[in-house]
């Protein structure tokens, strides 16, 4: 033997022996060849141990060859590039790869957690439901922290992900899932009709397990035939092939997700700027499930020892990587297929023996094995395995079907086992969107039955195990089938073997593992039945069988077999658990795609956004917008800046970017009547050139939005909504027009983004605007409060609304968005001599609160009516119908004790009531206390030099002058007097200045 006893001298279709690749595993440098997986390279180095199981921390090695692997879970990369729980069988090695084993401490070889294995007798399925209950407080402080220490497999990365991800959207006439012989044939057949074909395969190389399949097609071996077809497909313009791409889920209306590992196998690809992963969102007319089949392990005592693998995995290791798990193997099977592994081993010079549970198998491969002189134990099982961190020997015992325990055993030395319990069609994708399946006795497994979507299964995924039948089935995707000459060995029947007996009963301390990763044994499944967790879903949840990261790919059917034998029910009677996406786990990064950081949710910006930024604005998110909250200057605090801005508006003049305000054009002969339906108050009486404040309710009678609407012409209005309500109200108007008042001739056009809009507010507002050269009269007489004009300010076309949300003389000036920054600059410049300053949203809020103006969403919360906020006068008594009118009549909305909007003045004017503080009927030493209402807006008013607040208080309007109490956190009680809501300029003279 060479220095690498596990690497065969020759062979290995996937590796390039001329290119050495060095990587580290648990800190140790290991070399393999280009094309190796981490699994093959580590195994070739002589290491069998890959990980520890979840519950008992039993030492575990490789089992599978690809995505079905459940034991060899590895973490790769370091720091923010760490990725846990990857399957060693799917990791392609590259120079510098850093890999580590998981769920062990301090090392894979010496793992403290393995103590659990010693106590396993006390830890049956669901043991935690029966204990850890006393004393009560111990769950939180003792038991759970202890259990959480043991939780998880790998560890999370540290810090933000430095790599990128992306989405691709694609339509396909046909998507073929799986590039094995079935998928390749189906793709070629479908492509021949001229349709657009997308072929996805999870492996780096097409062909599936053609290289592990016996037979000849038109004189070529199956693998060569597959390679020929793959090459032809690659040249076709209407076929798109994606490798390293797993179709992870099938959803309603033939929507599929495919997960492409773009750069995982080669850091150079990532370094070139490519994404790490790509998520393909595929809409297909037709889905072809050609996902092949998964080999079942066999449940025998200690079947989880390292170096006990699936027969196909052993065959693949030899054929693809020139690696053998050992020098003396036992193939344990209940079917013909595993004999191919025996032949491969023999050819590679490895000593091999076959243990076949069938007494009289008659397939061609069995006959060939016997003829070739391979030792075959028919009617036998492996009843025991010796060795802990590997296999040193097995015991072989005679077996008859249904036998509960074996009597005599024969010991045979060996260092690995290749097992095959038969093959299950990979039904996951078929079942994700509700495909029906049926049990097939000859397969001893489920196969597809029917589906309501346009989806078919072909080949092994459809339970069609022969090459010849697969070719026929797959060619049905095309118009005319080609006849292939296929030679393949005649298969003998397999016999079910749900678990292999040992000398003791399986539920007497033997560990026949069904779900390897989660350490669920046959005894656990039986215990669940005995305790009444009989539904297969109960069994799954009680024992956690099928819930590991492999989602039961290889274990499910064996579990059903054990349950069947324990209960006497047939497998179809027991049924299967739901197949849920994804087929294999895929990254959250891929799901989020490029929608992270700056692209997470696009920010809506007003035309003045950059100016705000340049002038030190602090922003706040308002809906999708960012609005300037305040503009601190030099050493100012936010609070100081806000106060300065407020006083500037009150005493001089301020400028607010109100572009986010919703603006909707409403035009048509029925526009006025339509608005009468929408608003609580009347708009048909509004004169052209005038503005009116309007309230909107939803149909429940609650305030939903407010704003000023101006009449531009008889049939033309422009409506303002709240910033947050713009899109909602626009859609709402459209809905009513289209679905309820369909006879109205009205167009509704949202124009929020088309206009930049600024409030110029303060006693010097007119002075500022005059300097801009208006081409219309802006005097108070010609342009009074609540009126509207359009014209020009210098070169700027403007619509000007004389409306106020601050209580000062105020003009809202709108100009087409692309003029916005120019006009803003012009106003700033014109305002300079009057002391004009920009003000932000917080100053706006204080200004409006000083005047007692409500904000829908602050003073109302979705349960508040116009009557509650004291706007009964704005609810028309005359109009026969408008939205929400009828609901106001419902008993609770008219009932007593409703909360009503009032103003509050704290006894101590320096006390500012906290946001949302509740008043109580009577202050008590401790809660609960009866609450009578809450603060809706609260500010320290720089104008008044004292605090002010608004609140919704039970029967508040009949309690004017009453002092109420707000018990605060920490025991302080603030007292406040109920007042009306207008704190400043009650007469309203300033607005009309």
């Amino acid at each position, binding site marked *: 033997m060479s220095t690498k006893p596990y690497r065969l001298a020759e062979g290995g279709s996937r590796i390039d022996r001329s290119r050495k690749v060095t990587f580290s595993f648990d800190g140790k440098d290991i070399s393999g060849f280009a094309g190796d997986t981490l699994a093959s390279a580590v195994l070739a180095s002589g290491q069998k141990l890959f990980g520890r199981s979840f519950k008992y921390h039993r030492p575990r090695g490789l089992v599978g060859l690809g995505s079905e692997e459940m034991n060899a879970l590895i973490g790769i990369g370091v720091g923010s590039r760490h990725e846990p729980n990857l399957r060693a069988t799917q990791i392609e090695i590259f120079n510098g790869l850093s890999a580590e084993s998981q769920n062990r401490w301090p090392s894979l070889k010496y793992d403290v957690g393995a103590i659990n294995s010693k106590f396993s007798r006390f830890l049956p399925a669901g043991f935690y439901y029966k204990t850890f209950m006393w004393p009560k407080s111990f769950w939180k402080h003792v038991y759970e922290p202890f259990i959480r220490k043991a939780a998880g497999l790998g560890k999370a990365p540290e810090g933000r992900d430095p790599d990128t991800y992306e989405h691709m959207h694609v339509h396909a006439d046909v998507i073929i899932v799986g590039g094995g012989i079935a998928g390749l044939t189906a793709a070629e057949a479908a492509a021949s009709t001229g349709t657009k074909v997308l072929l996805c395969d999870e492996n780096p190389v097409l062909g599936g397990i053609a290289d592990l399949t016996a037979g000849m097609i038109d004189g070529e071996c199956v693998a060569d035939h597959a390679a020929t077809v793959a090459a032809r497909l690659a040249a076709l313009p209407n076929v798109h092939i994606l490798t390293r791409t797993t179709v992870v889920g099938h*959803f*309603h*209306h033939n*929507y599929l997700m495919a997960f492409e590992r773009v750069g995982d196998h080669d850091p150079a690809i990532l370094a070139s700027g490519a994404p790490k992963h790509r998520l393909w969102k595929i*809409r297909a007319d037709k889905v072809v499930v050609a996902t092949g089949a998964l080999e079942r392990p066999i449940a025998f005592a200690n079947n989880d020892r390292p170096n006990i693998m699936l027969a196909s995995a052993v065959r693949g290791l030899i054929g693809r990587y020139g690696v053998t798990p050992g020098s003396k193997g036992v193939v344990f099977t209940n079917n013909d297929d595993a004999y191919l592994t025996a032949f491969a081993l023999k050819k590679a010079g490895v000593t091999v023996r076959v243990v076949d549970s069938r007494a009289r198998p008659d397939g061609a491969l069995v006959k060939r094995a016997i003829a070739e002189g391979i030792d075959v134990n028919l009617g036998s099982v492996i009843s025991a395995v010796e060795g802990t961190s590997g296999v040193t020997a097995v015991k072989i015992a005679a077996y008859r079907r249904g036998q509960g325990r074996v009597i005599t055993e024969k010991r045979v030395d060996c260092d690995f086992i290749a097992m095959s319990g038969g093959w299950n069609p990979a039904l996951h994708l078929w079942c994700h969107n*509700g495909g029906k399946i049926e049990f097939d006795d000859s397969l001893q497994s489920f196969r597809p039955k029917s589906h*309501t979507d346009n989806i078919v299964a072909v080949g092994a995924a459809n339970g069609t195990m022969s090459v010849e039948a697969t070719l026929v089935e797959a060619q049905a995707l095309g118009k005319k089938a080609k006849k292939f000459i296929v030679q393949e060995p005649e298969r003998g029947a397999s016999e079910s073997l749900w678990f292999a007996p040992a000398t003791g009963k399986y539920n007497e301390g033997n560990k026949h593992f069904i779900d390897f990763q989660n350490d669920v044994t046959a005894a656990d499944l039986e215990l669940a039945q005995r305790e009444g967790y009989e539904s297969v879903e109960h069994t799954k949840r009680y024992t956690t069988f099928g819930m590991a990261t492999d989602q039961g790919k290889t274990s499910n059917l064996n579990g059903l077999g054990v349950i069947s034998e324990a209960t006497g029910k047939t497998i179809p009677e027991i049924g299967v658990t739901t197949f849920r996406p994804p087929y294999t786990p895929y990254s959250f990064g891929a799901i989020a795609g490029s929608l992270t950081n700056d692209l997470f949710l696009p920010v809506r910006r007003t035309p003045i956004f950059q100016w705000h930024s340049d002038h030190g604005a602090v922003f706040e998110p308002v809906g999708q917008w960012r609005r300037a909250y305040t503009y601190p200057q030099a050493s100012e605090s936010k609070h100081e800046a806000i106060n300065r801005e407020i006083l500037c508006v009150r005493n001089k003049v301020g400028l607010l970017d109100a572009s986010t305000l919703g603006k909707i054009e409403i035009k048509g002969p029925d526009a006025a009547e339509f608005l009468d339906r929408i608003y609580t108050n009347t708009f048909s009486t509004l004169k052209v050139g005038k503005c009116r404040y309007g309230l909107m309710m939803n*149909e*429940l009678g609650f305030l939903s939005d407010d704003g000023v609407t101006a009449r531009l012409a008889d049939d033309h209005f422009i409506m303002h909504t709240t910033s947050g309500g713009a899109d909602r109200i626009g*859609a709402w108007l*459209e*809905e009513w027009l*289209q*679905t*309820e*008042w*369909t006879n109205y001739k009205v167009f509704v056009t949202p124009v929020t983004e088309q206009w930049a809009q600024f409030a110029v507010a303060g006693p010097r507002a007119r002075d500022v605007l005059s300097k801009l050269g208006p081409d219309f009269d802006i005097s108070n007489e010609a342009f009074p409060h609540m009126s509207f004009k359009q014209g020009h300010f210098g070169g700027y076309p403007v619509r000007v609304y004389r409306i106020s949300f601050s209580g000062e003389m105020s003009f809202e000036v709108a100009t087409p968005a692309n003029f916005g920054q120019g006009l803003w600059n012009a106003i700033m410049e014109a305002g300079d001599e009057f002391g004009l300053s920009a003000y932000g949203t917080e100053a706006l809020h204080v200004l409006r609160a000083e005047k007692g103006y409500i904000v829908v969403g602050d003073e109302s919360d979705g349960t508040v009516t116009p009557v509650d906020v004291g706007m009964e006068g704005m609810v028309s008594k005359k109009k*026969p*119908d408008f939205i929400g*009118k*009828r*609901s106001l009549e*419902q*008993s609770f909305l008219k009932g007593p004790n409703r909360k009503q909007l009032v103003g509050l003045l704290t006894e101590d004017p320096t006390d500012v009531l906290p946001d949302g503080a509740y008043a109580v009927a009577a202050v008590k030493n401790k809660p609960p206390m009866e609450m009578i209402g809450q603060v809706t807006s609260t500010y320290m008013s720089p104008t008044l030099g004292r605090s002010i607040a608004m609140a919704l208080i039970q029967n508040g309007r009949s309690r004017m002058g009453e002092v109420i109490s707000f018990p605060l956190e920490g025991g302080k009680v603030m007292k406040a007097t109920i007042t009306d809501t207008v704190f400043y300029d009650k007469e309203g003279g300033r607005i009309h200045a």
Partner: protein
Amino acid sequence: MLVVTCPVCNASGDETDFHYGGQAHVRRPATTDPVNITDEDQRDYLFIRHNPKGLHFERWRCDRGCGKWFHAARDTVTMEFKATYGITELPPAELIKEAKGPWADYFKKRLKEKA
């Protein structure tokens, strides 16, 4: 993700290009009779919903296409769209026949009114 086809502009798209608008054929009592509406009428209008397992009639809007509202008949189990039709129209006769439970009662009443 469903594929929806607008009967007005014939655009097909993902459900995210459309807006779901809840149950179809809910009649707003105030529109025709603002005075004589009982609390129960108003409750039925605002809250009571057909919620069948199977064939359902509902409203959608072609949000990123023509902007029009339309009706759809959809199976709430298989998600299959059986038909789409105009926002002021009743479903195709064969679907009215297929309707069960509260939907069957509703269409019976509507057809009687029409006749």
